[in-house]
Every structure is written in structure tokens, then in C-alpha cells.
């Protein structure tokens, strides 16, 4: 399938907040209660439509543990959007947001759109972080905010799509240098029968090396 733009996202936040579940809910529309611990990085992708344009989201789901922090840092580079996730039932994941945000701001390009997500909104009875606290944090740091549930899918679509809308607006405003792929945005290739987008067209190695 062809797309007008490809946006690269990174999902960050403490381990266990539901990053991998959010990705799975968004890409596969399902919830997997027991998810393997993410080691390193995993990828997901989905096509969405904004303003009548097909936009492909390529999402990098990272490992949250401290041990992976320095490797995760190297992935901010080249992301146009970040979902910063905490767990509304675990106060410490909210407390760590400042560290995450500092990391993200320091290692990403300054235009990266950051969406703050309070996940597990279905667990109202175990809530430790009030919605207002999330809102306040977002306001203070200039982030977009949303509470989601990877389990019930509440607001999951919106979280990913609203982030894309912000990025799209920034492109329209000319804020992003879309010709530099390191900014996490790629202009799509127009699909023709001889040039379908990646997948049906995994090119041969020899041709990539020999000059023509």
C-alpha cells in the first residue's frame, strides 16, 4: 500500500506500564494479558488516514528497564512522535516521567511531538494517579495528554492518531524538515505496478551495489 507520509514513533516509559500492549491493541486490535518482557526494541506498523491522506505509522516499542536506557536513548533520534506512558495504578511510574522527558528532549530533534499517556484507565478502583495530575503535568511541559486502556481499547486509536495529527500540522506549517529522514518523517513513494511500496519489492543486494 502506498502512503503520503511515513511517521516514526517511539513508545517510552517504565517497564510494565503497558507499552507493548498499547502497540498490540493499536496494530492488531487485541489485548494480550501476559506479554513477554520487551528486550531491546520491537516494531509495529499501521496505516491511518489524516486529511484524506494515507499515513503510515512505524512504531518502535522499547524496553523500559534502566539497563536498556542508554540503548533506548539512541532511538529518539529519527522519531517524529513519542508516546510517553505511565500506569495510573502505579504512582512511581508517574514520578519517573521527568527523567523520561529529560531524556527524550535531550536526545530527540526539537520538533518531536510527545503524547503523555496514562494507561490502564480500566483499573479505576486501583487508581493512584488522578487524571488532573496527568493533565497538569502535560500542561506544564507542553505535551498532549490522554488516558487510555490497552485492555478495553479506550482512547488507544485516538492517542496514536492525535499524535499523527500534530505532526501533520507541523509539516503543514513547515516546521519539520521532511527531507531529512533523521527527523522521523518520510515522504511516501507513489505506488505504481512496477514500484510497489516495500514488501513486494525487497530489492536484490547485487543491484544495490553495482552502479548502473
Amino acid at each position: 500500500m502506498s502512503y503520503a507520509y511515513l511517521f516514526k514513533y517511539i513508545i517510552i516509559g517504565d517497564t510494565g506500564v503497558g507499552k507493548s500492549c498499547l502497540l498490540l491493541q493499536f496494530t492488531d486490535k487485541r489485548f494480550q494479558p501476559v506479554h513477554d518482557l520487551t528486550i531491546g526494541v520491537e516494531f509495529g506498523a499501521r496505516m491511518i488516514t489524516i486529511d484524506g491522506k494515507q499515513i503510515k505509522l512505524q512504531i518502535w516499542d522499547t524496553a523500559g528497564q534502566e539497563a536498556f536506557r542508554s540503548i533506548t536513548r539512541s532511538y529518539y533520534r529519527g522519531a517524529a512522535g513519542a508516546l510517553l506512558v505511565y500506569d495510573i495504578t502505579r504512582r512511581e511510574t508517574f514520578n519517573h516521567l521527568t527523567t523520561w522527558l529529560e531524556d527524550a528532549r535531550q536526545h530527540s530533534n526539537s520538533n518531536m511531538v510527545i503524547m503523555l499517556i496514562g494507561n490502564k484507565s480500566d483499573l479505576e478502583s486501583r487508581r493512584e494517579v488522578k487524571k488532573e495530575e496527568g493533565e497538569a503535568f502535560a500542561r506544564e511541559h507542553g505535551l498532549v495528554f490522554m488516558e487510555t486502556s490497552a485492555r478495553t481499547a479506550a482512547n488507544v486509536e485516538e492517542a496514536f492518531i492525535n499524535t499523527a495529527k500534530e505532526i501533520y500540522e507541523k509539516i503543514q506549517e513547515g516546521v519539520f524538515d521532511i527531507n531529512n529522514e533523521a527527523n522521523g518523517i518520510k515522504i511516501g513513494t507513489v505506488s505504481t505496478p512496477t514500484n510497489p511500496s516495500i514488501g513486494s519489492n525487497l530489492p536484490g543486494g547485487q543491484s544495490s551495489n553495482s552502479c548502473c
Partner: protein
Amino acid sequence: MFNRLKNRVLTSIVPDIPSITPSPSYSIGRPLPDKFQYQRPPFLQLLTPDELKASADHNVRPIIVPRDVGIMPFSCGYAECVNSGKSEWNEDQAAFSMNVLHHPSKDFPDLPYVYFGIFDGHAGYGAALAASLQFHHILHEKLVDIIELLLPTNVNETPPMFPLMFHKTVSKDELIIGALESSFYDMDAVLAEDRTKYRNAGGCTSVVTLFILGKMYVANAGDSRAILSQRLSKEMIKMQNDKPYPNGTKCDSDDYQVIATPFSFDHTPDTERGRILSLGKVHPDLMGGEYLAMEYAKKPMTKDLGTRILYKTGNMKGWTYKTLTKEDLKMPIVTGEGKRSRLLGTIGVTRGFGDHDLRALGSGLLIKPFLSCHPEIVYRDLSLIISLPDDNNIDGEYGILIMGTDGLWDVLENETVARITFETLKKYPNEKHRYTMVAQELVAKSRGRANDSGHWRLSDLKAPATVDDISVIVIPVYQYYKEFCEWEKKFFEAQQRREALRNNSNNKNSNNKNKQQAMPTATTNGNVSLNKIVENIDDDDEDDEVQEAKEENSEISDEIDKAIEKLNLNDGNSEEPTESTA
């Protein structure tokens, strides 16, 4: 732009090779298809094109590790990372295979073995991909071929008689080494054959480790590398005083030293100068009158014509004088030094698979005759390793085998790799994915970080990191050895039970017993013992006799087999024993 240029220097083959002379099928019809579509090693489970694309992000160079450590043999570690843009896809590949060899006599447990391979591709991903998907099948066939020689088939034969006496003395090691060597030849031949049907696959290096019968065999062709990282107590090092370890580096405490032992040797035009110059000297036709099989102490210049110059040729170890003539102004067959050396001015690696159609820059001469697919093999008998009880250092004593492509070794010394290995293991003492963490750390260290202008630098942000693809396998050797010891125990138990049963059965049937004594060289399962094989080589007529022996013996063997089946000694193998060919 600058980065582009530099990449070209660093890559093992100059990337802009002039288009390879098209074969007829290539130029007339449509381009030939890929034999295998691009993919990453299956154990990474990067299944969709989107995931493949994301994993090959040249700006970010994500470090990919297996999602599920559980599918890796011995929880071994693996990590990889794509190049910074010199080729669209990651041209490294890796593979492992855990398999068993069925014992010819079904009453014995199958012999397990484990294989790991790393392949660094150039001029395309095809050869490395083919090797990663096919090599283990070839190797398996070779091992199946020799299983009867590796294990005893006769109960009277404990321990197995080794070395084997054919006309020549043959040891088990030589059989396994031969299986590896011939697998290398066959893999290269497969790539040669595929040229007419599929798109040119390019070439690749190959380093392969086989764990079998309690030993570790490392076979290498090319400039990928394997080292054994060990962490030994000073006490232990003293015990092995005859073998001093000059390369030891200090570890976490003064009581231990970390040691890196090479298990392979890089094959570059520089390290293989002797082989290549000899070949050129004996077969000057291969150089098409364009190159010289000479090495000069000083670059020959026109202005020096007629003066004397020091040179080497063929396999010479030392230098000698000659008078410089116009002939000496031609290009030497090997140029440059070390990692930057080039064969026929084109390629920086001199062994591996493929490259059947690779031609030299400028001259267009075929390079393949100078390349070799012959592996050098280093092996270690793990039963000889001394381990101190209760010192909680089993990984240190048996060692961690690190296999990696040159992306790793170009920027990290063997000793540094060994040190990082044990530092990382110490950080993760119990985690199941601790070996993955080692692999990830090694890739992270050699990839480094991109600075503000997008150049990859080591952690100090000064020295250049590698821009090449990087792949690393981290194998805890003891984990294999432990499994082998369990197998060995089962094997000897099966052997003893079988012997006991046979004695019982012989007592019951004295008639059979007599036959048995008359035919001491035929085994219970109709297989022919080694003595018989030796005789057969001398006299083909004996075949009939052996056949008779087999038939007469099948009665007894049937009875025994039934009894064994009843007792369920054969480890779940309830099928009828099949006749195996002697």
C-alpha cells in the same frame, strides 16, 4: 558525502564493482529471481516487511535481539545491527541448528549436536542468506554419513575403537573436521550451481561452530571471527603454568583474569599473501598479464628502473634483490596492508562462499580462482577443561564463545570483547537473557552513537565506530557440555542394559549362543563391526559372508529388540529397528 566515501574504503569489497559481465540469460530475458527473498535470521521473528524495513533503519541502526530467548540453544545470546547506509539491507546473516543423529542401532539415544553460523555478505545479501538457510542441511547430511564411525554399534566394543584402522589411521576428530570441510566445499558449489537460475548472490565469509561429542569445532573462511572468552582464577592459571596466557586482562578482582583465545584466523589478502603469491607464481595465466605475484619492500617507480629493489615472491619468508624492470610497474596481486589490503585491487577478504562471477576493478579479471572456500578449523575437547568445584565460575572456566562479523572486530580488540563479556555477565547474574545482554552490549559498543552530524562514533564520541553491519553470537560453552554429559550417561546406560539383556537371551537359547560365538564380529542389529569393514576393504568377496552373518543373526536381534521394546529402554523410539547400510 564524506561519509559515503569513507564507507567505501572501510567496506570489505569496493562496492561499485563494474556491472558484472552479464550471463546470456541475464541480458536477454528478464532479470533472474532471488533464490531466497531477503529476511533476517528466523529466530528474530521479524516477519513482516514493515519490521524488516524498520530493522534496516540506517539513521538509527536499532540493535535487534531475539524476542524469545527460550528458542535459542543454551539461552545463547544474539544481537545485530545494520550498517549506516553502505547497502540497503543488512548483509550479515546468522543461523543455528539443534539436531540429532539417529544411531544406526535404534536402542541407543540419538546423538545431539548444535551448530552456529555467522556469514558476512558482500556485493549483495544473497550468498550469506543462502548459507544461513542451507549450510546446516549440508552439514547434517555429512554427519549422518559418518554416524556409524562416530559411535559404537557393537556391544562388545566398549569403548569405541579409535582410531579407526582403514588403510590409514582415522580419528573421530578427523571425521568431524572432514565433514565440516566438505560442507564448506559443497556450500560453495551450491552457490556456483545456482548462478544460472538465480540472481547473482555475491559472496560471504563463514564462521561456523559445531558442538558434538563433547567437543567444540570452529571452522572459519574469511574475516569474521570467533574467540573464547575465559575468566580464570590466578590459582587455575598457575595450575596450567605450561601454557602462559600473555593476553590476560584484569577482571573484577585481582584473583581473576579474563583471557581471549582466538578460535579462528582472519583471511585477508594481507594474511594470505603467501598463498595468493604462490598461486599467482604457479599459474601466471590467472593474472592475465595484468598483475604481478610479487611483493616489494618499496613501491616500484618509473624513475627507479634499472636500480635494485628488495622483493618477495611465492611463499618466500624473506626478501631478496632484483633489478627493477618495466614489468615490475604492473599492479601487484595484493595491495595495501592489514584490513585495507586488497586482492586484485578489489576485495578485502580471501576466503568464503560465492563470488563466482566477481571481476577485478579495471582489468575485469575473474577473482574466484584466488579465493578459497576451505575453512581453517580449531577445536577443543571440553572434557579436558579443569573446573574447580564450588567456585561459581563455570562460565569463566569453560568460557563464552563469541562469534562476530568484522563490524565487531574492526573496532573492539579481542581482549576488550572478553572483558565486556564478563563485565556484563556480572551485571546480570541470574537473568535468563544474560547472554543476550552480552551480545547487545557488544553490538552497542561497536556501533557507538551518531554525533550531531550523523557520524558514528565510539562512546567517547571521538574515535570512529564501525559503519558496517554487526552481528554477534554469545555461546556459554558449559551449557552444551552439561547436556553432552547427560547424553553420555544415557548412552552408556543403554549400552550396559543392552549387554545385560543379550547375556540373558544367550543363556536362554544356547543354540543362538553358539552362533553368536561363531560370529563374533556381527552385531546384534545386523551391522558389521569395524573389523569386518577393514577386511572388506581388502576383499570384496567377503560381502556375501557378511550378508549371511546378518541374516543368521536377525533372529537373535529380533528377539532382543522385542525385549528391549518391552522394557522401554530405547527412549521413546518404538519403531522397528531399520536395517542400516554397513
